[in-house]
């Protein structure tokens, strides 16, 4: 197994600031906007962006939820390994709100397809946007593209892009793992 660093901690930090600014450009004071981190690993990025926006860019408090898509996936009984669920925490109704899905890596687009269905259980949002840190180009199975992207990466199918977060993995970085 070889591992190549695609983004260092410093680069991740610069990208987070840029994404925060792009969000402000479109959503100003976030009064009608809700951030939704996709479980399991989109939640770290969502938390980070919320903190960054509120502390560095002095936005009012932003609503943040976690959405688990396990029960909405299209590969139930079709994968070798059992699907393990995570916690959903959405303590508000998303009716007529602007929802921003936040995930670390966009690969086939199937998780986002599941998230689009899952979020309907909490109301009908006025619009949904997608923010990802890493966009794996040329690997989509579905017509889904991000509205905000940190970095585009070309990786072939058996390679894996892993995003590490300080609070979970010790440091911020993005690596390309080849078996």
């Amino acid at each position, binding site marked *: 197994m070889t591992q190549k660093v695609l983004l260092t901690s410093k680069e991740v930090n610069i990208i987070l600031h840029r994404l925060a600014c792009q969000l402000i450009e479109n959503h100003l004071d976030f009064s009608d906007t809700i951030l939704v981190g996709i479980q399991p690993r989109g939640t770290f990025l969502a938390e980070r962006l919320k903190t960054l926006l509120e502390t560095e860019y002095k936005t009012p408090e932003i609503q943040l939820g976690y959405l688990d898509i396990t*029960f*909405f996936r299209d590969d*139930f009984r079709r994968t070798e390994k*059992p699907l*393990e669920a995570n916690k959903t925490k959405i303590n508000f109704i998303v009716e007529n709100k602007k929802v921003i899905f936040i995930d670390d890596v966009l690969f086939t687009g199937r998780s986002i397809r599941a998230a689009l269905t899952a979020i309907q*259980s*909490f*109301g009908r949002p006025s619009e949904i946007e997608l923010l990802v840190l890493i966009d794996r180009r040329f690997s989509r199975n579905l017509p889904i593209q991000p509205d905000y992207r940190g970095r585009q990466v070309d990786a072939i199918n058996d390679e894996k892009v892993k995003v590490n977060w300080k609070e979970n993995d010790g440091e911020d970085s993005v690596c390309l793992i080849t078996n």
Partner: protein
Amino acid sequence: MKELSVNHLLGIKYINKNDIDLIFETADHFKEVINRPIKKVPSLRDITIANIFFENSTRTKLSFELAQKRLSADVISFSAAQSSVKKGETLIDTVNNILSMKVDMVVMRHSNPGAAYFLSKNVKASIINAGDGAHEHPTQALLDSYSIREKLGDVAGKKVVIVGDILHSRVALSNIYALQMQGAEVKVCGPKTLIPKHIESLGVQVEPNLRKALEWCDVANMLRVQNERMDVNFFPSTREYAQQYGVDKALLDSLDKEIVIMHPGPINRGVEITSDVADSQQSVILNQVENGVAIRMAVIYLLASKIQ
């Protein structure tokens, strides 16, 4: 990655502590799902489940059906009273006929102990036992433990007394297995005629005195007197039973601690427990019913994920 160690849920005896933990963890997620504005997930949209009830049931059948529908499974339900069983069809024939309509899972209640086990050895489908005679009723025991865990934080180390008709109760046996597996201490309490001989061999103590039992316990699970299974008189009168083994508010208030009151339903109000106890703060009877749906969703989901 975690999965159940079994392909069928025939009884608590056949599963282990890890299975129970996994079912509870999964049920936590489903409990959140059933409290959403839209209480449905599409996981099992390509699974068909048959509910076959050879014995009457309201709560369990509704709870299973609701759990299946919340998971988007296709459901067919069937009661023996209106079926060809009356015309003399055997159990295997009945079930195989249903399975040839491409059913993946069978939830069965039957009056014969071992019926679910027998079925699991003879037909090709995932079987969930919804009660087999006086043997086991695993989903009830799971939801009872889950409700204790929810109310008291943990099952391990808790003292649970099961009161009433232990002899005819599948709920009692499944509960004893489940509670002990999770590290709880179990006593049974009831008229001697309704306590099975040699029940001590399961590691439970018999406490004939209700007051002493309640003083000892953290949780009292009050079982229903199963008149329909009694072919002779096991106690002189319902009134005498209620006086000796019924719990009323005065008795509860005279204890020096607050215990949790459970009942698997249906309640004979005024026999096992009085109305003011059933409707009191200490009773978790309606929580048990709500948790029943979450637990059954978890069991069905986890078993369905193992269907090839």
